[in-house]
Every structure is written in structure tokens, then in C-alpha cells.
């Protein structure tokens, strides 16, 4: 009898849900494809327009080629040196970035959790953290180079000094901002401290941690390139310094382009992993599974 009474409510709701989901996902899919085409052609056009203006400006001598090179020279350099210079250096830079990122991620999350669990310790070290985090990290590079030499270690150290604090702060902020109503639920249910931590606080912090990790990835890249520019045997940063010393603007701009593309790809990778792992419960625009 109970079931019979609730059924109309349920049937109406599920039918409505299913129908709107179907219609929505079909409409959404075709709309999404159109949107993607518009987006990518638009971006390509912006690039082409920029390169065109650049080329014209150099061609008609509005700008001095010595200072700004030209798009065709940049492309020529890219093609000629792609396999023998760009790839080996980029590989080295990315390798260091990855190590720094992983270390920042692990240490940052752990440190964030520890500081949250030990509020007295947090109070104790707070000014030191602020001091370290507000220090211009590039100023540490000479020290790291002195300590760790000009191999991969000093690059990683500089990148880590950037990424670590980003992950630490985002982890701490995420776990601190748990919705008070969930903490009330936890108390009223009698969650053990471990249950409260693993079932409520940790999952709650995940989106914030992810935001920190994505930022740390880009900043690791930044840190590695910066360190390479100051002193290194290999890497994209070192390559830029080498060619700017030779006043080869085509090479410098080509390498800058490679770095920009790398940063975009890293960002997209982060977004993609985030959407795949958390999309179903955080992203209000993604289609339900």
C-alpha cells in the first residue's frame, strides 16, 4: 500500500529526469561539438592574425627584424633544431618539472594535513611559513646552485620551493573549510576521529588540493626554467640564455613558443585529470555519468 501511494511521485520524477537527461545530453553533445569547432578555429585565427601582423610589420620595416625576428624565421628555426636541440632540452626540463611536482605534491599535502592536525605547531611555525612563502624564490636560486651544483637537483630545489607552499596552503585551506553542517552530521552520528577524517574531511579537501596541484605543476615548470636560466648545462631555460647571448631572436622566440605550448599542454592535462577524477561530483556543467 505504501509503495502504491509513492509510485506516482517516483514514476513522474524518474521519467522527467530520464527524459530531460536524454534530451539534454543529445542537445548538449551537438552544441558541444559546435562550440569546440568555434573555439579552436577562433584560437587558430587569432594566432594567424598575430603572426600575419608581425610578418607585415617586419616586412615593411615598421619593426626592426634584429629585435623582433619574424614568424617565418621562428618557424624555420623550430623545424631545423626541433629534434637535435628542442626535444632533448625540453625532455630535461620536463623531467625536472615532474620530479619537483611530485615532491611538492606529496610533501605539500602531508605538511598541510600535519599542520591541520597539530594546530599548536601551526601557530608555532606560521610566521616562518609566511616568511619563506613571501620570499622571492628566485633569490634562492644562487644558494641552491651553490649547494646542489648545476645538475638537475638545483632546478628541482627551486621548483619545489614554489610548488610545495602552493600545495600546502591549498590542502590546509581545503580541509579547514569543511561545511559545518557535515561536521554536525559527523558529531551526531558519532563518527570516530578517523572516520571523520577519512570519510568527511579528506574527501572535502580534494577539489582544493587539486586546484593547488594544478597550480604547482605550472609553477614547477616556471621554477625549473628559471633555475636553468641562471646556471645549467641543459634545459629550455639554458637554451634561451645561450641564444639570447648570440642575439638570435628567432631562436629565443621559438623556444618561448615551445615553453608556452608546454605550459598550455600541462594545464590541459591537469584539467583533464581533474575532470576525469572529480567531474561527476564537482563540475556542474559536465554530463552526469
Amino acid at each position, binding site marked *: 500500500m505504501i*509503495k502504491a501511494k*509513492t509510485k506516482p*511521485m*517516483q514514476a513522474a*520524477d524518474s521519467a522527467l*529526469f530520464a527524459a530531460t537527461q536524454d534530451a539534454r545530453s543529445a542537445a548538449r553533445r551537438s552544441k558541444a561539438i559546435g562550440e569546440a569547432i568555434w573555439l579552436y578555429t577562433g584560437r587558430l585565427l587569432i594566432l594567424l592574425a598575430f603572426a600575419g601582423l608581425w610578418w607585415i610589420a617586419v616586412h615593411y620595416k615598421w619593426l626592426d627584424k634584429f629585435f623582433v625576428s619574424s614568424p617565418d624565421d621562428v618557424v624555420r628555426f623550430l623545424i631545423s633544431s626541433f629534434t637535435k636541440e628542442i626535444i632533448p632540452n625540453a625532455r630535461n626540463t620536463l623531467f625536472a618539472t615532474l620530479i619537483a611536482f611530485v615532491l611538492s605534491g606529496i610533501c605539500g599535502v602531508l605538511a598541510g594535513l600535519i599542520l591541520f592536525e597539530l594546530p599548536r605547531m601551526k601557530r608555532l611555525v606560521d610566521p616562518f611559513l609566511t616568511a619563506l612563502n613571501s620570499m622571492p624564490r628566485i633569490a634562492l636560486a644562487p644558494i641552491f646552485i651553490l649547494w646542489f651544483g648545476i645538475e638537475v637537483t638545483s632546478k628541482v630545489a627551486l621548483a619545489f620551493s614554489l610548488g610545495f607552499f602552493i600545495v600546502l596552503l591549498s590542502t590546509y585551506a581545503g580541509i579547514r573549510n569543511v561545511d559545518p553542517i557535515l561536521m554536525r552530521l559527523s558529531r551526531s552520528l558519532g563518527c570516530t576521529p578517523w*572516520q571523520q577524517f577519512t*570519510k568527511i574531511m579528506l574527501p572535502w579537501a580534494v577539489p582544493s588540493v587539486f586546484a593547488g596541484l594544478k597550480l604547482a605543476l605550472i609553477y614547477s615548470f616556471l621554477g625549473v626554467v628559471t633555475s636553468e636560466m641562471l646556471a645549467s648545462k641543459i634545459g629550455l631555460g639554458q637554451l634561451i640564455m645561450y641564444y639570447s647571448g648570440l642575439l638570435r631572436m628567432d631562436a629565443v622566440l621559438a623556444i618561448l613558443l615551445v615553453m608556452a605550448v608546454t605550459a598550455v599542454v600541462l594545464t590541459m592535462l591537469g584539467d583533464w585529470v581533474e575532470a576525469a577524477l572529480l567531474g561527476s561530483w564537482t563540475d556542474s556543467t559536465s554530463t552526469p555519468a
Partner: protein
Amino acid sequence: MNPRRTGIVVDSLSHRFASGLLAVEDASFSVMPGEFVVIVGPSGCGKTTILNIIAGLEAQQTGTVMVGDQSPRAGRQDVAYMFAQDALLPWRTVLDNVLFGVEVHAYGRGVPQDTREEARNLISMVGLGGFEDAYPRQLSHGMRQRVALARTFLMPSPVLLMDEPFGALDAHTKLMLEQGLLHLWERDKRTVLFITHDLAEAITLADKILVCTARPGSIKSEIPVDLARPRNIKALQNDVRYHEYHRRLWSDLAAEMVV
């Protein structure tokens, strides 16, 4: 746990906030085992404070409060608390949210298969069949509160404390959920202490209505609601006595209103 055995007794309960504000003054009432009692009162009259004390979320200061044969304590498995907010975990599906309370109380021993079946059963009873794998953000406000309702009822706790669980919903959704709550309650007649400021809701649900005075809150009157069960919300609208109760409650509460 036998749902019919646990009642609530509150005797000369007063409560003063840290700020010095006297929230509750000398409140006394009892909820018989298996009884559905609703507290109505003007906002800020300390209704929620009373509920929080009974749930053990707020320390008791004076008077006597007994839930069953024990003093209140947070995390008792024989007391389930449902809030005005749905308090769903956004990373859990509807089914996993409904299972959450039971899962916590299993303390790592795992949830038995028949409890999972019961969870699915409850989900369709609150009208969410087909939504088991949806995430909270995909649901409307009313649907999320139904998930919270199912989570509360899946726990075998004989005492349910409900703090304006439908307070934030639109009128239509509210009626549907009230009917749903009545169905669920009819199954095993648990002891319910329910807070609302909605008089119609109070009459629809209650065996007994406690009218709360303005702050500091105390119980001004007890009105037994002698309407036949199981109740049907639509049919109640045509019941003369339903409207008489409404008038009576209204005049009781009007004295407490500051206009």
C-alpha cells in the same frame, strides 16, 4: 532495537548561551515511545537548542533530560538527527549517501547486503527510484532532502530528532515530503520529536503538538491531535477538525508574536 521502547523526558530544562542570553527557560515535556511529537513556536524560541541538547550536541546545563534510560550523548546509535540542511556528502552517490549513517555505525565492519537492499527500497519509497547513482549536485533541493530522509530512516534508531527538515522547501515539495514521512513513520512507529514553525505541518504529522513561547522558550501548551491514522494530506484538508486545530494553534501562537 525496539522502536516502541525509547521515549524522551525533558524536565525543567533551562539553557543559557555563553553570551548570557537565556534561550530556554524551565521547559518540561515528554515524548512517549512511538509517539510523534511536534514542537511549534516563533523563530528564536530555543526549539533547536532543546533538540540539540537532546541529541547531545549541546551540553545540558540544568534540569533533567532522558532519552530512554540514559542522559543525552552525541553519537548514540539509538538517536538519529535530521537537519534543516540536507547535509549530503557531495562526492557520494544517492545510494552511498543513504548508506552513510549505517556505514559509520558499522565502524569498518562493512554494511550487510540486506541493508543495501533496504537502502534501495527506501530510496524508491521516498520517490527517488532510478536516482541511486546520481550525485547530490544533480538533484533539486527537495530531492536532496528526500535522500537525507532515507538516510535517517535507514538507521535503525528508535528515536528520530528532526529540526525543520522541510523548512526550506517550497509548499508543494513540502507536502509531498510530509506524506512520505508519514508513510515511513507508519511502518515502524518510531519516537519522533519534530520541530517546525509551520502549523499545518504540525497538525498533519503530530500525535501531540507542543507550543513554545517566545524567548526564553518554554512549553506554553500541549495539544493532542486526535486525527485518525494513517493520515492522508489531501483528505485532511477537508476535515473540519483539522481546521479547528489550526485555529486553536493560531490563537495560541498569536499571543507569542510580536508584530
